[in-house]
């Protein structure tokens, strides 16, 4: 058990001090490429011998980014631009951004002017993603991005290297899928905050190393006895669940995150890769095959049913919607799945969050009331 705690603490530390973790990678002589939200071709970065790291904002004062963005802009993206301008990201050897929403389209352009010191690779994923021309388009984009990355890495990416990177990423994704299910066995040890930090650590590590560490944690969990839990189990939905004080409120009220539909967490790894085709094709189909994601167009929006099934499968007591304020795609999905959850009689708590909040106290009260209502 002491071992398990130690192993978990190691990953938590990575998530709590990302700059240190990234500096550690750099000190090994590896180049590091920043990944804007949401889904990017990390396999190509990895195949080029570099380490992709996450850029999901942070709790920072916004001063410089006000030169480019009005106040009604997503707090993650504002924080990213702020830190880019401030030089916080200067250790990055490159940054990739894809234009998944209107805000990202604009910030893609602002970034070029505001943060000229870091090599920048903009790209586009198609939205009409289930037709063959979209697959071909993605392959062309991957190829273009690969050429840019090769320049930064000073190396050539081969199909063998791509295959190896794909294997690393599929193993990482499989491990994460297994991990989120293990929360059910140890809902106390893997409380809302710990679960988040363990998953977050993956954004600042070599995925191969991360997967080994996560597998070791899972082995220890499998060997340990199951924990008694009398609290509330919920599915969380949204982009991400920060600030951390928000997760403290879950823990304080004995609310366990039994499953998630977060862009920052499960949406990264829940779609299983296909086994046929080239690596580029498999990467493209992971986007084409994704379901119930606000950032990916879907003619017959399946998110509501997806959440209902997730609640059922994970035996959750309800859903907590963590709405990242000013995220248009998420805000459009909400009224649709709200009706579907109500019809299915799934209890739901809706909370608007921002990465930097003056106070999370009102949210704490709401989490507490929701937990009391469900208990």
């Amino acid at each position, binding site marked *: 058990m002491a071992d398990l705690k130690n192993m978990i603490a190691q990953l938590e530390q990575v998530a709590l001090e990302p700059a240190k973790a990234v500096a550690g990678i750099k000190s090994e002589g590896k180049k590091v490429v920043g990944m804007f939200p949401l889904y990017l071709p990390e396999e190509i970065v990895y195949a080029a011998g570099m380490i992709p790291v996450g850029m999901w904002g942070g709790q920072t004062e916004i001063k410089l980014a006000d*030169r*480019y*963005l*009005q106040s*009604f*802009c997503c707090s993650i993206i504002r924080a990213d631009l702020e830190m880019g301008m401030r030089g916080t990201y200067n250790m990055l050897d490159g940054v990739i951004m894809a*234009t*998944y*929403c*209107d*805000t990202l*389209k*604009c*910030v*893609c*352009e*602002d970034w*070029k*002017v505001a943060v000229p010191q870091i090599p920048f690779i*903009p*790209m*586009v994923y*198609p*939205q*009409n993603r289930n*037709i*063959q*021309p*979209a697959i*071909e*388009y993605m392959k*062309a*984009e991957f190829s*273009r991005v690969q050429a840019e990355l090769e320049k930064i890495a000073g190396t050539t990416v081969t199909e063998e290297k791509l295959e190896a990177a794909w294997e690393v990423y599929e193993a990482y994704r499989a491990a994460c899928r297994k991990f989120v299910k293990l929360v059910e066995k140890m809902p106390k040890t893997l409380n809302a905050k710990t679960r988040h930090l363990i998953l977050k650590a993956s954004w600042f590590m070599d995925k191969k190393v991360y997967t080994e560490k996560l597998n070791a944690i899972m082995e220890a969990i499998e060997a340990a006895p199951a924990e008694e839990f009398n609290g509330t189990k919920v599915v969380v939905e949204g982009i991400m669940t920060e600030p951390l004080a928000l997760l403290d409120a879950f823990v304080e009220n004995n609310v366990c995150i039994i499953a998630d539909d977060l862009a920052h967490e499960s949406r990264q790894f829940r779609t299983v890769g296909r086994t046929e085709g080239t690596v580029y094709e498999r990467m493209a189909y992971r986007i084409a095959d994704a379901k119930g994601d*606000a950032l990916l*167009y*879907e*003619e*017959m*929006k399946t998110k509501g049913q997806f959440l209902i099934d997730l609640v059922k499968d994970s035996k959750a007591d309800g859903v907590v919607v963590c*709405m990242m*304020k*000013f995220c*248009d*795609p998420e*805000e*459009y*999905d*909400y*009224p*649709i799945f*709200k*009706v579907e959850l109500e019809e299915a009689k799934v209890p739901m708590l809706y909370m608007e969050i921002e990465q930097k909040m003056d106070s999370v106290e009102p949210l704490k009260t709401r989490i507490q009331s929701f937990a009391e209502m469900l208990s």
Partner: protein
Amino acid sequence: MEQKEKISSKEMLNNLMANHYKSAMEAKANGELVAWSTSIAPQELLETMDIKVVYPENHAAAIGARKEAQKFIDDAEGRGYSIDLCSYARVNIGYKNIQYADAENIPLPDFIFSCDNICHTVLKWYENLAKDLNIPLIVFDMPFNHTYDVPDHAVKYMKGQIEEAIKRLEKISGKKFDHDRFREVMEQSNKTSQMWKDASMVAKAKPSPLNGFDLFNYMAAIVTSRGTKEGYELFKRWKEELEEKAAAGLGPWKPGEEEKFRVMWDGIACWPYLGPTYKGLKNNGINMVTSTYPDSWTILYETGDVDGMARAYSSNYVNRNLNYGVDNIVNLINEFSLDGVVFHSNRSCKLMDFRQYEVQREVEERTGVVSVIFDGDQTDPRAFSTEQYNTRIQAFLEMLENRKEERRKG
């Protein structure tokens, strides 16, 4: 013999719009297919198939101008739509539920036609409509051009979607797509687009015969009638009128009302406050000569060239990079001899807003013109204050006057 007096372009516009709404309602009543479409979508396909189409953005604007947006917005917000989302979307989603407006009425659609060259928002908004109404949704995804021009692999992807859309339209309508008719519609659409552009270009004359707020009115027709001869005839008449005024040296307003300053408007109108926004400028002798509207519907390509058509649709300025956005405005400033730019920081439109500050800086630096940004919204009446607007315009006026004085002194 007495010469029959020509009908004015304003009357033609009114007739055309009245018929647009009326014929859509009749088509629905007769059991014909009706589509809802975004405002800059490849309407050529629908026109070729002779499918009636109405445009929710136009309709929301009409509702906004009639000052009845709030009840529709309230309905949408009551269903969980955030106040931070596009107000056209909130109005339209409210309308879908309420289904009656004093301004105009549109029939509910049998399918949806959505092109994201104008924003990502329309993908989500129309996705919701299709889900709520349980009807097919045809999407044209036009990848954002972070490069100056439209890349070839994006053209290929868009062409693939046009081909896909034709198959789906054949299935939905049960009719065969007529490629000869398609060519005719392409030709007509180009002619109408060009005439719309030509009419707007008459405003280059000094003083401008065009009061640019008219662009907001005529815009309704370039959206609804780009593929038709009626649209072409309307803009031709409008152009003739403007040319006659220009030849007579007439300005935008009544004789004696001098056009002291010429500016452009960046972004969408504030429909619920057309009067105050117009008067705030006009009362100070500021004429809005042009805007980003004329080029938005100047969609030109060779007849029969589907690649060119895809490229043209993807070339809308909001779908292109910062350099293009800046060049676009700089060109307008030069072509129309402008003194300044009015930027509408439109609470509804993140895609227009979040580049605006940088565009403003670069445009001012390259041209030396002055500019102002004001806060507003395209249809949400709560997001605009006439008093604040007038204060901004007063400051703008001072900058315009100072610049004029400096230039006079050399």
